[in-house]
């Protein structure tokens, strides 16, 4: 059963805070939930389906359902790291399409900036790889750096090309008053910033912020009653990549498969896409996604991102017009949610006028969760204007 056209994003809300030391994590979930529901013209009493990541406080979503007083017929706290919000859009659309729920709420909230819990996965129990990877000092930036280094070796990608991705994000972020980093940077400033994990510099890395976001999905007949431009779910795909027992290709992601599935379900082509929200934990994450989703051939991501290709409104493929995780926010160490929210803004013509893509009809949001190179969730959604 295809989800195409069966569900609509009726509400979206991004927490404006970037440092929230005086709020509990459940409170952040609640604030974004209320924000997204208000955006849709709905309330908590309307929600009968709830989705969150496994990092939500308590036992999956059960504690949050209690905290919010939700009356649920459907709940899903499956996890794919920061890509799980694309995944949950697909899962929620499927639940709506099969009649399991009619109003689905998806929330994200976290405080990695003002608490000491900065290492993702630490709360997830004892992982089987712990004594074969972290024991050697494998950290998030180093694992992504391994992919970047190998991509440079195989394809001749340069630090300057990766820097173009940060530059585009910063050009957009200057218009976002909530963005953590609003200064427009140059390629030279990126490549001259300190090395974090070679070849990745500090400015190749995303910001760490508190905050969160939420989405509300509704069935088509509910969407028709709402006084709101809704965004149609057209396609979804997800794929998990891993070490394959040590035989992994670290320059290719599961985006190849999640993207193909999403495009197949939506029945649209790469050339039809007006805007992309791409997970940007690091600049290399964006480059690999562009290649693996098919916006350029494998190995040519470096050339693709040159010459302002990602800059809105004049670039060939505008991306992350809120500044993305590279400049705006990366709440809870998870960047998937905000990529979808900005795609919704674009499709509703509600992005900042300086970065709004003219006549934005079709958008793609893609997440890369977990740890590139070793164990990685990938999820892609294709969204369209209400009549798409």
């Amino acid at each position: 059963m295809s989800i195409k056209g069966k569900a609509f994003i009726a509400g979206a809300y991004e927490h404006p805070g970037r440092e929230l030391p005086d709020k509990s994590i459940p409170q952040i979930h609640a604030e974004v939930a209320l924000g997204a529901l208000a955006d849709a013209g709905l309330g908590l009493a309307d929600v009968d389906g709830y989705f969150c990541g496994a990092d939500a406080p308590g036992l999956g979503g059960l504690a949050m359902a209690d905290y919010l007083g939700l009356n649920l017929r459907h709940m899903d706290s499956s996890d794919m790291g920061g890509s799980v919000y694309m995944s949950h859009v697909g899962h929620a659309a499927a639940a709506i399409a099969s009649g399991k729920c009619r109003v689905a709420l998806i929330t994200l909230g976290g405080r990695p900036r003002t608490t000491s819990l900065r290492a993702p996965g630490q709360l997830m129990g004892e992982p089987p790889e712990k004594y074969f990877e972290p024991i050697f000092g494998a950290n998030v930036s180093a694992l992504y750096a391994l992919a970047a280094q190998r991509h440079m070796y195989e394809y001749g990608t340069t630090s300057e090309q990766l820097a173009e991705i940060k530059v585009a994000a910063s050009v957009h972020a200057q218009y976002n008053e909530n963005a953590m980093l609003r200064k427009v940077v140059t390629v030279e400033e990126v490549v001259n910033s300190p090395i974090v994990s070679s070849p990745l510099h500090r400015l190749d890395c995303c910001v760490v912020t508190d905050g969160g976001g939420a989405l509300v999905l509704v069935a088509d007949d509910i969407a028709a009653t709402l006084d709101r431009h809704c965004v149609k779910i057209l396609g979804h795909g997800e794929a998990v990549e891993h070490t394959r027992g040590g035989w992994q290709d670290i320059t290719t992601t599961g985006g190849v498969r999640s993207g193909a599935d999403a495009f197949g379900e939506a029945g649209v082509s790469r050339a039809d896409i007006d805007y992309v929200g791409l997970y940007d934990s690091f600049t290399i994450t964006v480059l690999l996604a562009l290649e693996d989703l098919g916006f350029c051939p494998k190995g040519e991501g470096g050339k693709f991102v040159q010459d302002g290709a990602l800059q809105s409104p004049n670039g060939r493929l505008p991306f992350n017009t809120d500044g993305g995780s590279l400049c705006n926010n990366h709440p809870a160490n998870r960047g998937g949610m905000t990529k979808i929210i900005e795609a919704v803004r674009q499709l509703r013509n509600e992005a900042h006028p300086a970065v709004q893509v003219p006549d934005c009809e079709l958008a793609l949001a893609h997440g890369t969760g977990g740890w590139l190179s070793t164990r990685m969730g990938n999820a892609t959604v294709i969204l369209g204007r209400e009549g798409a």
Partner: protein
Amino acid sequence: MSTTELPSPKPEIQPETASFWAATLEGKLLLQRCSDCGRAGYYPRFVCANCHSTGLDDFEATGRGTIYSYTVTTRGILEYATAGSYVLAMVALDEGPKMITNIVECEPADLHIGQTVEVVFAATGGAGALPRFRPVIRDV
């Protein structure tokens, strides 16, 4: 820069990893080979990640490989939080599988992808030694 003074956390031993870690104390790097598909695999586990057979047998690897990718990282966490900069690498073993490890006894600036490396074992004070790698110095 020396990378020989890295932290060496003690591994926690699971039943399926016990033979791997016991061998490290004897200076041996064990891999598993699948008796059905024939492929060597890393890290040790109960089921073949390629064909899903449970017919996995330990064998001693040569301990040689090449650098598939590497990074000099300054942002260690957990036991490595105060380690300074160190080399994290993915080494492609001669038997095929790649493993996350460190390159030690090297000048990081001299490393390159494709470089030949060999295993060395760092004592942890626990029931296993950490398999790290160093560049092979060729006779001239």
